[in-house]
């Protein structure tokens, strides 16, 4: 029902039928009212009132209803208000002038306001068109930037794939070369070139290479899994109240074979509070930093591990410092990118085997999962690198929330 009325209303408004109806009704009503108070109103008031109605109709419904209103107004003005009343004749010549003036004014005003209305409509239409174009343009820009982002992420992906395949293939190459050397001996060489038997020392060396490189492959794959978990936001921390000195000693125990021959100094502030962290994950971070410090330190350089409570924000602050060449300021952020290696991608040259390029990226993931931060500074004295990370103490309320989730795979 309501819907029918609305449809009719719409049709009326759009077909200007309503305008005609309003023109007739309002002019008639105004005439009636004015006629009732006939004695008190002079013809000028009547003319102005009727003109007002013409203007209103013109503004609301355009020129054609306005013309109708004008003609009707003129007729009524003449019929009811210009003597002799009740006829369309006009007696006084001055009333002729008033009548004609009213007629011209009514029609002109009606046309002008109708034109103004049309202009306004056109302007509105123009504005809507511009708005539509703007929105379309915006959509196009958005799509373009999405494509660009996608293209860039594809490019990044293929760069990462290159890095990964390189790191998988390198140990494989050594393994394959070792095994074929051993096989070659077993098979007795080729007919073209009989093999000179390997001495036990060489044979042992080949097998050692196979052993070490298989471990390297396995470490690399483990790192990939950790990284994938961190990136998918699936690093479930098994937070427990833990003592900082225990975390550090766990890491150092694991690093015992690689710290051999190096001097490791540990400074832990006395009476450090316990922290709610995933012990294993944080000790993995410390291990990674110690391993890196050793890797980039010459000879028997000293490594310093410091743990203290920051006076500024009350967080636990741990750092590992070496006496190596240091890292250029512009590389200090990039070393945390996955697969970035200062030895390969930066300018540092070393003959030592470089790492997997994942250690620091994983360390960063673990620290950030604890709402901490990790960064690189120059070590005290200017020589060497200091990697610092912070850990919030942890909340009493956040107890045992992820006790049942799997801990990050950080097998030693």
């Amino acid at each position, binding site marked *: 029902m309501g819907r029918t009325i609305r449809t009719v209303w719409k049709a009326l408004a759009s077909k200007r039928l309503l305008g005609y109806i309003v023109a007739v009704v309002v002019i008639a009503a105004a005439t009636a009212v004015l006629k009732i108070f006939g004695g008190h109103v002079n013809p000028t008031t009547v003319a102005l009132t009727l003109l007002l109605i013409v203007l209103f109709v013109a503004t609301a419904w355009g020129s054609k209803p306005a013309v109708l209103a004008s003609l009707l107004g003129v007729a009524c003005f003449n019929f009811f208000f210009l003597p002799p009343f009740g006829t369309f004749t006009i007696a006084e010549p001055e009333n002729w002038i008033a009548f004609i003036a009213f007629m011209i004014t009514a029609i002109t005003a009606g046309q002008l306001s109708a034109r103004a209305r049309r202009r306004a409509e056109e302007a509105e239409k123009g504005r809507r068109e511009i708005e539509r174009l703007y929105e379309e343009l915006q959509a196009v820009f958005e799509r373009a930037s999405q494509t660009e982002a996608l293209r860039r992420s594809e490019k990044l992906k293929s760069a990462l794939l*290159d890095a990964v*395949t*390189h790191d998988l*293939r*390198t*140990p*494989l*190459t*050594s*393994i*394959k*070369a*070792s095994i*074929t*050397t051993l096989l*070659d*001996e077993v098979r007795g*060489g*080729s007919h*073209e*070139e009989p*093999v*000179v*038997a*390997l001495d036990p020392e*060489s044979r042992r*060396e*080949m097998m050692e*290479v196979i052993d*070490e*490189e298989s471990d390297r492959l396995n470490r690399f794959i483990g790192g990939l899994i950790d990284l994938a978990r961190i990136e998918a936001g699936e690093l479930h921390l098994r937070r427990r109240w833990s003592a900082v000195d225990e975390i550090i000693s766990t890491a150092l125990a694991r690093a015992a074979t690689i710290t051999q021959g190096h001097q490791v100094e540990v400074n832990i502030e006395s009476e450090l509070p316990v922290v709610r962290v995933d012990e294993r994950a944080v000790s993995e971070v410390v291990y990674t930093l110690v391993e890196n410090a050793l890797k980039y330190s010459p000879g028997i350089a000293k490594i310093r591990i410091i743990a203290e409570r920051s006076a500024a924000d009350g967080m636990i602050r741990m750092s590992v410092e070496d006496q190596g060449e240091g890292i250029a300021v512009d590389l200090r952020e990039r070393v945390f990118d996955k697969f970035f290696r200062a*030895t*390969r991608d930066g300018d540092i*040259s070393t*003959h030592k*085997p470089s790492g997997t390029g994942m250690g620091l990226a994983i360390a960063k993931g673990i620290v950030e999962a604890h709402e901490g931060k990790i960064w690189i500074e120059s070590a005290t004295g200017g020589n060497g690198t200091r990697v610092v990370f912070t850990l919030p103490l942890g909340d009493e309320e956040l107890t045992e929330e992820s006790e049942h989730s799997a801990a990050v795979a950080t097998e030693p």
Partner: protein
Amino acid sequence: MNDKPRILVVDDEPQLTRVLRTGLKSHSYDVRTAADGLSGLETFNDWHPDLVITDLAMPNLNGLELCRKIRAVSPVPIIVLSAKGEERTKVEALDIGADDFVTKPFGIEELLARIRAALRRAVTPVVNGVEPTLLQEGDFRVDLESRSVTVGDREIHLTPKEFDLLTYLMKHAGKVLTHRRLLAALWGGNYVEQNEYLRVFVGNLRKKIETDATTPRYILTEPWIGYRFNPSAE
């Protein structure tokens, strides 16, 4: 006096140089290793190896630059170790004058075969100034004066360009020749991008020398890189 062939291995991966040193020594080669291009070049200049094996991606002077620097002073055979994904660098190295490539990971027997082939080519006496009038490689016998060619006991007739192509291939038997190198040698520098020229002439030459041109045994295709001439089809 040490008459073992000397091989210089340049690679930044210490485990691989370790394996190659041991593996090649057991095949009676004298081996030295270097971990980057720069120290590789130093060893090359001091030690004068008979053959160089080099990786491509290395710190301090990469493999490509090393090839260029060595080629500038010496015709010593160079074998490039490359990985899948390094094709462009590999082709560039071959363009510069590297003799051959082995793709990582590789078996030692493959590397040994390439080493033997490269060393064999290197000992073929090079007569300076005077061109030999008779070329003989495997099944092929070419008289450069009468321009007669025999494959096995079959005499064949070649157009002048086919003749040039065959003699160029024979002079570089066993070596990987890039499209670019062949085009530059036979048609000159302006034609180095015109792979289709080469394809047509190789096709024609194959029809004349191969017993079955669809499965060539003499002119072998190295996909995306070029050709390798194998003078004794076995």
